[in-house]
């Protein structure tokens, strides 16, 4: 099937040269392009560039997939097929329709209904939380949670790619657990409830005094200050907090980031928590902030943050103010010593320290030429 490109054909043939080189044009169109190329030096130069691009792309070597891949896929398939096998066994069992079996079945059903009702209505004792399977079959330890279950202190709760669960946090709230999540109940008591999120994504809604509910991640601790939020941790232990109401504090390496509703904050293992930012900040602002927080972006990254800051971004600038002060002008720059040995700023008013620049930025947001 040849590509019809009449609608994009203008005076030159530039936009269809790759299709021409790949033999994707109809005969008539290919003839028109070939004719055009004979008479147009601009398109001939363009065609040379396209051919060079094609040769570059053709150079990429194909790679063989690692032999170990199938093992992981087969293991996942085996895990998924286990419940199917159980359902098949159940079907065979039901086919033995004797009166004795019917009586036993009724008794089992009654027991099951009673058990479920007891699980649902009993008060939540200390040391364990209720787990409800929302989709698929999450696991607690080695056991699958078909509908409801219990998560005791020290146990791991895991959802696979197609299962979801809701965890009741004693009597103060609940945590929705997305697919692909692994977490552990660390502690639950009168004054503190704590889970460890190894990886995956949870959404917490908690109605309790501040600093009663905590989530430990590989890169920070999220302390609930009375709020709702989503916390996600990837396979490398990096975290991303998004707060939907109230406030959450992220703590690590002796530093705290307070994140309000509408704001996000990233964390990375081995580093203090990142600087919070509002979700509608410009992409350049967010990238520069990440460079400042985690990639030693220093002065250059800070400049971009200040350039891109809006009035709403004072949240970020307020956090940066303390951080640039703490790091000695934020960019590792110290006042230069003059010939007479006295310390003085290394430049004029435009060469102020990082903290000063952030302070200036916080006062004068919307100014686009702070530096």
């Amino acid at each position, binding site marked *: *099937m040849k*590509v*019809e*490109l009449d*609608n*994009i054909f203008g005076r030159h043939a*530039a*936009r*269809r*040269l*790759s*299709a021409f080189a*790949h033999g*994707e044009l109809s005969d008539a169109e290919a003839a028109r392009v070939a004719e055009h190329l004979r008479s147009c030096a601009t398109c001939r130069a*363009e065609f040379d*560039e*396209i*051919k*060079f*691009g*094609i*040769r*570059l*792309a*053709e*150079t*990429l*070597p*194909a*790679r*063989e*997939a*690692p032999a*170990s*891949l*199938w093992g*992981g*896929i*087969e293991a*996942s*398939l085996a895990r*998924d*097929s286990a419940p199917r096998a159980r359902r098949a066994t159940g079907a065979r069992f039901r086919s033995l329709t004797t009166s004795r079996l019917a009586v036993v079945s009724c008794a089992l059903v009654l027991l099951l209904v009673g058990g479920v009702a007891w699980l649902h209505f009993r008060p939540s004792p200390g040391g364990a939380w209720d787990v409800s399977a929302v989709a698929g079959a999450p696991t607690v330890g080695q056991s699958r949670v078909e509908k409801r279950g219990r998560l005791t202190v020290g146990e791991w709760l895991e959802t696979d*790619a*197609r299962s979801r669960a809701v965890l009741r946090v004693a009597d103060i709230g609940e945590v929705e657990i997305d697919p692909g999540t692994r977490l552990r109940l660390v502690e639950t008591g009168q004054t503190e409830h704590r889970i460890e999120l190894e990886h995956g994504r949870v959404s917490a809604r908690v109605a309790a005094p501040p600093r009663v509910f905590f989530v430990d991640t590989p890169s920070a601790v999220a302390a609930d200050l009375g709020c709702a939020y989503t916390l*996600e941790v*990837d*396979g490398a232990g*990096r*975290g*991303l907090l998004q707060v939907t109401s109230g406030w959450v504090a992220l703590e690590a390496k002796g530093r705290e980031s307070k994140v309000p509703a509408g704001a996000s904050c*990233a964390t990375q293992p081995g580093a203090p928590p990142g600087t919070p930012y509002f979700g509608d900040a410009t*992409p350049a602002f*967010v*990238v520069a*902030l*990440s*460079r400042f927080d*985690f*990639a030693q972006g220093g002065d250059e990254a800070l400049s971009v943050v200040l350039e891109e800051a809006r009035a709403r971004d004072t949240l970020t600038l307020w956090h940066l103010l303390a951080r640039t002060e703490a790091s000695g002008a934020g960019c590792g720059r110290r006042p230069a010593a003059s010939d007479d040995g006295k310390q003085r700023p290394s430049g004029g008013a435009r060469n102020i320290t990082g903290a000063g620049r952030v302070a200036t930025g916080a006062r004068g947001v919307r100014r686009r030429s702070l530096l």
Partner: protein
Amino acid sequence: MEQFAVLTTDERGIGAGVIESCQRGDREAFRALFETYKDRVFSVALYFFGGDDALASDVTQQVFLKLFTRIAQFRHESEFTTWLYRLTTNVCIDEQRRRRRFDPLAAIAPHKTPRARDAAEERVMRGEVACEIASAVAGLKPKLRIAILLKYFEELSYAEIAAALGCSPGTVASRINRGHKILARRLGHLRGTVFHES
């Protein structure tokens, strides 16, 4: 290009019988399907993510797990390969979105500093030019990148790529054209050395 065996649609694909066996849960059929497509899916994922082997392995596993769990829904209304490459594209783009949310720096295209031309031939021997091209491909916007990868690793026609991406062949032509131009511009220092003018 020796590694890319130029196969016809019949040769490179698998029979309907294998797909039907997969739909019945036949593990051997799954294995046959995996063996047929694993290298191509892995190569696309590898170059989509700038040569990250571990991530490409993870993405390849995700693609085949989704494929096997959803294959019962495949109704032969489109080519199986179209379905597979749409799945591959979606997994790659979803994974990239997820990674960007965690690490905004991942949004910055990797650029390698061009080195002196006189060492180019030697670098070919060491495979460094391939790395440089892979890096430039990884720096393309995702929509351009996936179109280029489907063209050169899956050897799909523009119409097949359009079906996999859910856009028109004209859009595919435009994306591939832009991809070629960007590669040529970014790797212009290789012109006339490794890639002698023809």
